[in-house]
């Protein structure tokens, strides 16, 4: 509880903090890139770098929605499971109707509904978000497994698959989508009243409520946005993998949370940016890509991601304590 108050530093610090945060992240990316280009010949190739960007875009879609939730001081642990459900439902619709658009509506719609349910659990039933979304993680995953019954749905129209694996002007299409959502997300968070209210809720929800911000409906909104972005991510996944299975979203929770936290968004709310999450997704993808190139056993990816999560929060706590002391 006390941490919420201490991290809610003066707005002046947050503004100047954004630039230093950006600097650290760019430096980290630079270091990783230099190290990897020495360690592996395959790293500095156009193909590999474009692949990194494409992978990062998948993480970014999920992580940008989650960023908004974490900015309010809440958490959404169900993102990965939501991707799984959305992907499987969208896959069914695309296969049976042949219409990618209808599939997109169903996928994003399903994600939004899970988000709505999370929002209701957190605001109306007042269940702490980490436990409510942890519960919905298992419920949604159970529904997905039951619905798929071990089947795989594969083979989608080429037009749809371009969303995940196509190129325009030599750059993967999901990267354009990522750039679009980076702009939209950044604008939404920093330049709209809604965005400012989200920061205010995260900084101090009681003060936000007393100053007339409809806290509950904004919280429901961010959970819906997180679910909708998971739905969008599921479409790109589907288009890239060209197949859907029940466990498609199972391993996505850790990297999504890691990207947000590496991006400098504080778990305690009120501090962070969508652009930070973009750099977080990029850094995480670079690290995992590097491990791949160096032929590290893929089973090391969850432990490394887990350690990165812990380290990021620790760093956030350590630096906010220092800024508190110097203020």
């Amino acid at each position: 509880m006390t941490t919420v108050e201490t991290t809610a530093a003066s707005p002046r610090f947050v503004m100047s903090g954004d630039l230093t945060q950006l600097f650290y992240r760019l430096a980290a990316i630079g270091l990783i890139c230099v190290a990897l280009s020495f360690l592996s010949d395959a790293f500095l190739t156009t193909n590999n770098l474009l692949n990194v960007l494409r992978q990062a875009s998948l993480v970014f879609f999920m992580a940008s929605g989650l960023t908004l939730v974490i900015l309010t001081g809440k958490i959404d642990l169900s993102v990965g499971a939501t991707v799984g459900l959305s992907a499987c439902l969208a896959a069914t619709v695309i296969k049976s109707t042949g219409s990618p658009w209808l599939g997109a509506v169903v996928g994003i719609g399903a994600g939004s509904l899970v988000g709505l349910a999370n929002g209701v659990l957190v605001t109306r039933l007042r269940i702490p978000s980490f436990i409510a979304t942890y519960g919905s993680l298992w419920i949604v995953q159970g529904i997905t497994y039951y619905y798929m019954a071990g089947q795989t749905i594969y083979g989608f129209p080429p037009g749809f698959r371009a969303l995940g694996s196509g190129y325009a002007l030599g750059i993967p299409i999901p990267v354009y989508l990522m750039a679009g959502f980076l702009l939209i997300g950044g604008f939404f968070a920093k330049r709209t009243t809604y965005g400012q209210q989200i920061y205010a809720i995260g900084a101090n929800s009681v003060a936000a409520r007393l100053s007339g911000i409809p806290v509950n409906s904004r919280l429901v909104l961010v959970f819906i946005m997180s679910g909708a972005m998971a739905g969008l991510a599921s479409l790109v996944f589907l288009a890239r993998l060209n197949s859907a299975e029940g466990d498609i979203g199972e391993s996505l929770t850790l990297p999504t949370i890691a990207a947000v936290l590496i991006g400098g968004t504080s778990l305690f709310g009120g501090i962070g940016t969508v652009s930070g999450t973009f750099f977080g997704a990029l850094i995480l993808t670079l690290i995992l890509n590097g491990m791949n190139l160096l032929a590290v056993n893929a089973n090391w990816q969850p432990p490394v991601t887990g350690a990165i999560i812990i380290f990021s929060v620790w760093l956030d706590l350590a630096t906010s304590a220092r800024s508190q002391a110097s203020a």
Partner: protein
Amino acid sequence: MTDYSVIDQPAATKASILARVPGVAFMLVLLFVAFATTTPGFTTLANLSNVVVQSTILLIIALPMTLIIMTEGLDLSIGAVLTLTSIIFASVLLPTGSYALAFAASSVVGIMFGAVNGWLIAVPRIPPFVATLGTLGIAQGLCLIVTDGQSIVGLPPQLQWLYGGTILGIPVPLVMAALAYLAFHGILYHTRFGTYVPALGGNREALRQAGVNDSLVLVAVYTLGGFMAGIAAMLLTARMNSAHPTAAIGMEFDAIAAVAVGGTQFERGNGWLFGTLLGVVTIGILRNGLNLLAIPSSVQVSCVGLLVILALFVDGLRSTEE
């Protein structure tokens, strides 16, 4: 005299417990009656004793989970740590044949994970769900790395006695679970340490003001969780007579569910150990009944999730009434 702030907490806990008794008991009876009337084979002695024996592993990790949640904490890693300790147990037992050595090795790993969880939460004050989510990833990855994704088989058949044998006619796992329950009852309700546990959740600052090393208590609580995961790992390994890298992945959810259904709150340090016992039996009955109805385990998980949300919903209604 400074201790009053600490002593206040269990007293408040007792009052709110009494108000909650019917909640989990009601669910338990309702589920029992529902399955008894609809599901053939549910009320046979063989099946019911099966429910009890199968609940023992869950109880052994749900007990420390109760204490952890009472500190306003959470341990998402306990299922993965249980799996990892089972793998360590099997992989030491297989070449050496020494149960003592195998138990020592798996306990050390469990205790280490618990202590790291506790330290991360107590000292840098990383929120419990994210600290243990991180160690969950680490433990889960290690399970796959140590085994290379394979099961460890060929363990001595005598090991099965641990899960399938009896002492004075009572199944061994039941004896172990009962001992664990008694030990936790003793720790929580009859030691000074036990009074600190709800105080950590209720008012950590007051505990510190009272001169208690709050961080040490918190580390001890999580370490207890890791140690109990090591105990449960022996039963799990004996049950399958093998170790599998995904054996107990996700079991933390059943443990958290049992604690929540049992009426322990995620805030304010209100907890109830006997409620956890009832919660474990409730989940055991739910899963067993659904099994008999041939409902796939994926749907069972969803049902457990709905049960938790129902329990928390009722819990919320009650607390707003107060």
